[in-house]
């Protein structure tokens, strides 16, 4: 896609979906829209789109987006360090997929700075980008019935940390004691979109 073009798709009468092609650009647009005070109740970045919901005037939204340039927006969120105990049930699977051993998995996983590009699946569950595409791993063919809160896993080239116990099909590398989601905190999500994340050995 031409990076200078965004496409708006109407969603009902008070929302629009903006197609930008990838998650990093979606995060950049969402970050810009919030700082620019674009008139929308919800601004929801996702894998290839940004949803603007609760928009009084979709025409005005289109006009406002004229002011955005994908190249000009860089995301420099807060850096959060997440300590991990690397004892997950899929460590050996990932080691084999990556052609290394357990220590090699830990070295590669801790050697990358990630960016939380969007949330989904559960409150506070962030999709963390940063792993190179050639380290992508497939999800489990059938999801586990219960993945404990704090589990650190991979799906494709995404990394994620389960904020609460739930079913899940991500390949689990380990676990953290960090509280990913706390409704009583002013910022309930530890890793909201835009956060930079590194993992360290606990």
């Amino acid at each position, binding site marked *: 896609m031409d990076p*200078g*073009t*965004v*496409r*708006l*798709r*109407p*969603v*009902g*009468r*008070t*929302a*629009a*979906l903006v197609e930008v092609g990838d998650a990093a650009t979606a995060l950049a647009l*969402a970050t810009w829209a919030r700082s620019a005070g674009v008139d929308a*109740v*919800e*601004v*929801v*970045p*996702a*894998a*290839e*789109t*940004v*949803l603007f*919901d*609760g928009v009084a005037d*979709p*025409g005005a*939204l*289109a*006009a406002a*987006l*004229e002011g*955005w*340039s994908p190249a000009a927006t860089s995301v420099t969120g807060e850096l959060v360090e997440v300590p991990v105990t690397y004892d997950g049930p899929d460590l050996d699977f990932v080691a084999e997929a990556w052609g290394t051993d357990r220590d090699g998995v830990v070295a590669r996983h801790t050697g990358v700075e990630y960016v939380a590009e*969007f*949330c*989904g*699946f*559960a*409150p*506070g*569950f962030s999709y963390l980008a940063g792993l190179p595409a050639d380290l992508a791993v497939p999800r489990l063919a059938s999801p586990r019935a219960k993945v404990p809160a704090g589990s650190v896993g991979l799906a494709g080239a995404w990394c994620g940390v389960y904020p*609460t116990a739930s079913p899940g099909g991500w390949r689990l590398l380990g676990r953290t004691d960090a509280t990913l989601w706390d*409704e009583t905190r002013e910022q*309930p*999500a530890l890793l*909201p*979109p835009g956060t930079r994340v590194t993992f360290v050995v606990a």
Partner: protein
Amino acid sequence: MTLHVVGTGPLVTVQDRGRVGLAHLGVPRAGALDAPAAALANRLVGNDPEAAVLEVLLGGLTARTDAGCWVAVTGAPSPLWVAGEARAHACAEWVPAGGTMTLGRPAAGVRSYVAVAGGITVDPVLGSRSTDTLAWVGPSRVEVGAVLPVGPSYGEPQPLDTPRSRRPGPLRVTPGPRADWFADDALDVLCGSPYVVEPDSNRVGLRLDGPPLERRGTGELASEGMVLGAVQVPPSGRPVVFLADHPTTGGYPVIGVVDPDDLWQCAQLRPGETVRFSRRPAPPAPGSATR
């Protein structure tokens, strides 16, 4: 004052107008599923529109108050008894101190709303008193033994004009955002056929059985943001109308969006009942910002 819950039936939750502005963190909005009914209940007892009410699924709520208070029941017409005496639907009714109110099973509809003058004042979570049943954000569901705080009321409710009875009709659908993922006739099929409400419908979505909506291709949609009223179509082709507790993102294409004014009907349709859709004109494209 407080409300002491003695019985609940299948599901009782506290709901207000929902938890907005947190979809980007994956938090569903929640809020009363039949929003106009909840708003009416609040008006009848003199509450602000944002006061929290009880959403009662198929009756069964029994509660005792420790002080006299005005209540109103709207939505599904559950019979209301106060201290064993039948009272009116959609009217302000007085419950004396120590009195017990009971909601029976409604003859039609699914969800009734109980407003208490002063509103239910459980602690808000992230700016709202609504319980989300997808991720269970918000106050816990109302169980037997719960003691619910009620705020100060504004005095005796003023008489209101009698609200008009609501007429169900087809759910009006605005095409998009992914209507182009479907066969040319898919919207005609959706809007030309009866769909039957499935038993696993809930606050997350109204699940429907009927003629499947065929996709044009076999591609997979990247997860994208979802709105209230989105008609999402999983691979089975059977549409699901997203309601208040819907996930904030989803990976199945949305063929259209149900008009917000029609969503109250989705809160009141019973499994086995039939629903129809009608097509609204597509909105003008908001334009594309092109450089």
